[in-house]
């Protein structure tokens, strides 16, 4: 069971309080009807599936209820950081440095 730091509660808590919500920073286009079929396929289905640092979303379902973002190493399952939705994508190289 992973340990996850909720950026809203400011507590590091067991995974059982959280639900996974897929890749982060996929923005729903403001005008979906302007999108081509390829673009809509990309939005719906195409995912990074990164092996290593993965930008992803979690929800503190059994806690504050908020969706938030995280960077997790999918090889070790360790979180590099978590941050609130809407915050900019953290710089990967500095995150990796800190953990190396």
């Amino acid at each position, binding site marked *: 069971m992973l340990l996850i730091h909720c950026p809203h509660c400011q507590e590091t808590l067991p995974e059982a309080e959280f639900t996974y919500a897929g890749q982060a920073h996929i923005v729903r286009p403001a005008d979906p*009807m302007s999108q081509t079929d390829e673009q809509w396929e990309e939005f719906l289905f195409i995912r990074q599936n990164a092996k290593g640092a993965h930008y992803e979303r979690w929800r503190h379902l059994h806690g504050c209820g908020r969706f938030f973002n995280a960077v997790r190493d999918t090889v*070790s399952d360790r979180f590099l950081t978590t941050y609130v939705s809407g915050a900019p994508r953290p710089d990967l190289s500095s995150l990796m440095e800190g953990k190396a």
Partner: protein
Amino acid sequence: MSYRIPERGRVDRSQPIRFTFDGREVTGFRGDTVASALLAEGNHLMGRSFKYHRPRGPVAAGSEEPNALIGTRRGKGQFEPNTRATMQELRHGLQTTSQNKYPSLKFDVGAVNDAAYMLFSAGFYYKTFMWPKNFWHKVYEPFIRAAAGLGVSPTEEDPDIYASRNMHCDVLIVGAGPAGLAAARQAAGKGLKVVLVDEHAEAGGTLLSEPQAVIDGAPAWDWLAATLADLKAAGVKIMTRTTAIGYYHENLIGMVERLTDHLDEVPADTPRERMWRVRAKQVVLAQGALEKPLVFHGNDRPGVMLAGSAQTFLNRFGVLVGKRPVVMTSHDSAWYAAFDLAGAGAQVQAIVDTRGEVRDDLLAQAKALNIPVKLGHTATATSGRLRVSSLRVNKVTGATVGAGEEIKCDAVLMSGGWTPSLHLFSHTKGKLAWDDDLTTFLPSDTPEDCVIAGAGRGLWGVEAALRDGAAQAQAALEALGQTEAAQGYSVTEDRPGTGVTHKELPTDRSPGKAKAFVDYQNDVTAKDLRLAVREGMRSIEHVKRYTTNGMATDQGKMSNINGLNIAADALGKKQPQVGLTTFRPPYTPTTFGAFAGYHRGSHFEVTRKTQIDAWAEENGAVYEPVGQWRRARYFPKAGEDMDTAVTRECAATRASVGIFDASTLGKIEVVGPDAAEFVNRMYTNPFLKLGVGKCRYGLLCGDDGFIRDDGVIGRIAEDRFHVTTTTGGAARVLNMMEDYLQTEWPDLDVWLTSVTEQWSTIALNGPNAAKLLQPFVPDLELTEETFPHMSCAEVNVAGTPARLWRVSFTGEIGFEVNVPAPLGRQLWETLWQAGQQYDICAYGTETMHVLRAEKGYIIVGQDTDGTVTPFDAGMGWAVGKKKADFVGMRGMARPDLVASGRRQLVGLLTEDGSKLEEGAQIVLDPNQPIPMKMVGFVTSSYDQGTVGRPIALALIEGGQDRMGETVHVPMPHRTIAAKVVSAVFVDPENSRLKIGAAA
């Protein structure tokens, strides 16, 4: 009990305990294991091996034991197979049985396999049993299955209870031997939460087998007692009979505590086993090392055992495993076993060492004890049918194995050296490093916050373990901000030692015919490993899987390193190039019940019930599970089956009034200035202009354009909507809405609150619904003018503030009364009483399904299946044409979703008046061969109801354009013709929805 040595061991001689083994009564003492008690009788034969059914006795004294597996039983339903006799403590009334034998342990017909052992080489079953083809299923496989399998499964329900708990601590120490005890002492008294666990019945580890050691001036057992007392006084939680089974992410350790298997009587409310999920800031692994067997022909005969284990049986249990033992070793440690046994009165026949030279002090002590010594010798055979009677040893000169010499004996104590217990460390994905000097893997880096101490990282001797335990614990404590020097220890009478490692021992026999066992339980021999390599198995994983080496219930504790050394030799490679197989949790086999914990029977999983559920139960409801809920399916009267009851409920509702518990529907309160905008974006229908006090049916799609859910949405105020969802969809829909709200549209000022359980929802349907309800709603006139269909209001109902909806899922005049949940049953009973004058009928989900189907209303998940768009469902009217966007709008425009020929929802009426089966497939040409071209299927189908004939809903390709056509439903024995009709079977004009019109 002639093998019991007075004054030795820690068993309580004042407490004799009787148990049975294969029906025979045996007496041991409190503190004994089944193995020690049987050995005390001079009985080594305890089991039969997996493949060859060879007679076997214990080779070890702990949880790594591969041979002495027994069935254990307390009472009805309290049987378990494959229990290690070396771990099962005695208790009064314990019944034990040997396994894998027929008809008896001493004479087993399965042992013919042993005679034909040359046939059963590694991988033999991949090479044969292929002809004739159907013989595999009918003959070969049943035969193989019956021969394998060791013990028998339990066949009765387990009456015991199990438990689980979470724990957080600062330092968890696994293993309460000298390293673990020193680690605990180092961590104790600093205000930290320290937990020390050990799988055995008492703490002490090696110290229990080495009473001679003197630690800081105190005899080992005195030191142990004092240390345990000190640790307890300092608040250290000491947990014995507790096995750390797995090391999971972020320092989560799974541990199983065995609470009652050693007790004569099980106390009330006490679980048999408890799973602990321990989250430790720092972990100290002090699990020690495992002794390796030597690999030689006949190394599996009862009486051949690890020297260290013989020492344990003597010092901990007071049992001599043989009166005339011979020691066969490549490591100093077994010399001490010889000395200990000699000291207890055994006539040690010889100490045979593979090494040409050993330490002078060992030779001197052997001489002093009159023990013959043979250096530079190998073992080439043993004899004895059910118990070893002699060991054959040969002088080795260079590569030449000399003539054999028989040494008569009643036990062979062997030692091939020691290997660290790396299992939990490996679970962390920690890296291992090969140590050439020790010929073993040692722990290296791990991503987890853990240290490994003592013999677990290749250190031998009590003093080394104590010092390392303190030092490693201190290293861990530093991460917790504790700076202090590691405590020092000095030990006299310590027994450090060294040795050499062998592959299989040199022999003068044809190696192809030697039965030199590596994995005892699975009967894997050195020649099997070499054959696997010869056949191209180069990875240790291939060797393991091809031979099954290391896959027995000891999980390779006895066999992995020996297997690796032999495979590496066969491959001509260094061990690290061949690799070690991965250690998998659990560390030792762990009861399913311990994993299940409380989650059995009534604790298994929540069953949600509404406030009205109890009334339904009192009134004879038959239930169905729907998601986590149980819902009343129908209310049979005496003698009624489901169909009869449902027909009656349908008729009563259409004739007068029915009452239905709709409380399980999901309910979400959407509040804020942007509430209308939010609902409008989520649902396909337009909501911006919905008036306050009005409701509207809504369809919810995913962004792929397929229907996800539906419900009715009422506008309570300008900034407040009350949204309902399906019963099963409630949590999912709320999560989806929160996702869009928080992630895509955080600028909207609107909030969502689940009110599913705030309200009890009672539905009244039927021509008399308004009449029944009106007296309880004095503040609102229930007429077509003042409260038309699809209205909602906050009013008092029967004196209770309520949300009243005029909606219908039946085609009849309908109301849904929402009252605060705990008042639901009270209102239900009020309406029930008042409804008697109208012959009110309580109906369940089945009648609800029929009534809605007659009206052509869909059930999401039944008439849709995740591949259906609103247009497919015939609900294009629910899609807002003028909206710029809503969830699913773009998805619906994808090429395949707008293509012609999609499956569309229609009604079906069979031509012969029979009822179709839900799920039945529809074809256009009934005479085509298989595979047939299917154009759709029946989604809903009901008998009778109120239409007077069976009706069905179906999804059919191009269905809307097939009205009036005949399609065919091929059933196993006949084909049913059906006509495609409108999905609305009742009152297409909606006249029955009007108050005053139908009544």
